[in-house]
């Protein structure tokens, strides 16, 4: 279980103004869950992921099975980001060696299977890959590290829809019951069936947290739930046009 307790994080945007990126965010992720993390730009999604991974200081507590995240258990977390966290001058094979050396539980079989399935060349430097291929490789690495909690921050920016759909299906096929995914994405409608739970972040606080099954019981689509939670006024544009404000 990954427990996130009362996380607060603020930035100083300029000498006079402090911005609260996260305000008392509390969340619990059980093993095996596939959770979608949604929110507008600046909602705090990336900040939350970075806090979990220990990239920035914060107030509050994050526990992994009751223990603080330190060098002893950090290998149980992996990360895939649209900014890419691999070494551009190394090849995938060299990355596998690096991961094997530093993360004891690297999944070699899964790595080779995924590389083959997506037809990614093993010996080419990552620099020479296309954007779509780079995204794929970034996600593959995060899946093969041997982590229990796989955090993804908009991992498919730049991949075509078929590519993405393939990936969701592959993930569903290979994930083990002990593996958890926290996926931060804008693509609400696309991941609706893939995820089991949706967490909505807005201006640093959690506005909504529901399972997809619960939504289905209520006959609500995920998009409806998001709209309702954000009190999104869909007719805002047409009203402004009618009132000749635009």
């Amino acid at each position, binding site marked *: 279980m990954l427990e996130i307790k009362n996380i607060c994080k603020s930035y100083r945007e300029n000498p006079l103004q402090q911005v609260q990126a996260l305000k008392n965010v509390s969340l619990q992720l059980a093993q095996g869950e*596939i959770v979608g993390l949604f929110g507008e730009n600046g909602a705090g999604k990336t900040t939350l992921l970075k806090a979990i991974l220990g990239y920035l200081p914060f107030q509050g507590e994050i526990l992994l099975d009751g223990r603080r995240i330190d060098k002893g258990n950090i290998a149980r977390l992996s990360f895939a980001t649209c900014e890419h966290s691999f070494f551009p001058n190394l090849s995938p094979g060299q990355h596998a060696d690096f991961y094997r050396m530093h993360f004891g539980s690297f999944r070699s079989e899964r790595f080779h299977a995924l590389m083959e399935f997506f037809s990614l060349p093993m010996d080419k430097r990552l620099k020479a890959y296309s954007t779509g291929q780079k995204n794929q490789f970034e996600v593959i690495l995060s899946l093969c590290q041997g982590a229990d909690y796989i955090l993804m921050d908009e991992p498919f920016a730049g991949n075509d829809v078929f590519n993405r*759909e393939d990936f*969701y*299906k*592959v993930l*569903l*096929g*290979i994930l083990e019951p002990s593996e958890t995914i926290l996926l931060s994405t804008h693509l609400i409608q696309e991941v609706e*069936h*893939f*995820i*089991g739970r949706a967490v909505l972040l807005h201006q640093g606080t959690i506005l909504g947290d529901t*399972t*997809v*099954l619960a939504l*289905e*019981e209520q*006959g609500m*689509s995920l998009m409806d739930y998001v709209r309702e939670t954000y009190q999104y006024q869909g007719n805002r544009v047409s009203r402004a046009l009618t009132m000749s404000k635009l």
Partner: protein
Amino acid sequence: MISFDNFILESDGPIYLQIIRHIKQGIAAGTMADQEEVPSRRVLSALLGVNPNTIQKAYHLLEMEGILLSRSGSKSCICADPGKRRQIRQELLQNDTRNWVAAMKSLKLTREEALELAQQIWKENDCMDNGWRTEHDKEKGK
């Protein structure tokens, strides 16, 4: 192994109900046999691109109705003797007809008008089927 080849995910209605309906329709139509194997939860989840919890719910409800039987490991199979098959068929037919009647009534049709409409559409459908069959035979003949 039962097939999900012509299963299309609709955007309205819970997915677990759609899966249940697909399996019941297969049983009712005779395309899914008694004791025939059913894909494991993980395989179906990957096939449809749908979260395993949804598959689990569908399978669980089918098991409660006695239509699915869980065997050892992750294997399950259809459990539909002729009696059960008849029952499912009846259930589906009644449900669909009930929905149709409700739809007709909501458009303020009388029973006679509704039945006449049904006859007309049925005839059109038959013609289309025959037309397709003729084309298909023509192709075969070639």
